[in-house]
């Protein structure tokens, strides 16, 4: 995850309290989704950014996961994301995201 974005996540977590935040991702791959999810829960796995060693444990989902999709207006979802469901490996993304949440999400 981009270092500047890590900094912003850390600051926002301090400002609003980690329990009040939800992170929504748009990653193209399961692995990339997993790495970003890991960064905002268990800390930066690449040991490069401000979240290194910081276990925020935030709630984190991918936009294509049912939990998020079910709360979004279906027409807007179809217009903005619908086509990408044919492109992305949604199952793989869901597996990665669920595994990270089970392990590291605190809220």
């Amino acid at each position, binding site marked *: *995850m*981009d270092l500047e*974005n890590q900094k*912003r*996540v850390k600051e*926002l977590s301090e400002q*609003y309290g980690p329990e*009040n*935040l*939800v*992170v*929504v*991702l*748009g*990653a*193209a*791959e399961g692995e*990339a989704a997993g790495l*970003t999810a890991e960064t*905002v829960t268990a800390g930066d796995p690449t040991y490069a950014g401000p979240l290194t060693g910081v276990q925020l444990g*935030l*709630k984190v*989902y991918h*936009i*294509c996961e049912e*939990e*998020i999709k079910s*709360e*979004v*207006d279906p027409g*807007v*979802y179809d*217009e*903005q*994301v619908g086509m*990408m469901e044919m492109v*992305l490996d949604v199952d793989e993304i869901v597996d990665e995201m669920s595994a990270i949440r089970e392990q590291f999400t605190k809220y």
Partner: protein
Amino acid sequence: MDLLKGKKVIVVGDRDGVPGPAIDECIKTAGADIVFSSTECFV
């Protein structure tokens, strides 16, 4: 339980997946309060 309604949301989109602004459009409809939105680029 509502995940998004009234919650502070951080969006991390992907240029080659779903970009930030497209995610914003979606989650706004769920009543989320977007506090930060970005798009990552791996290439």
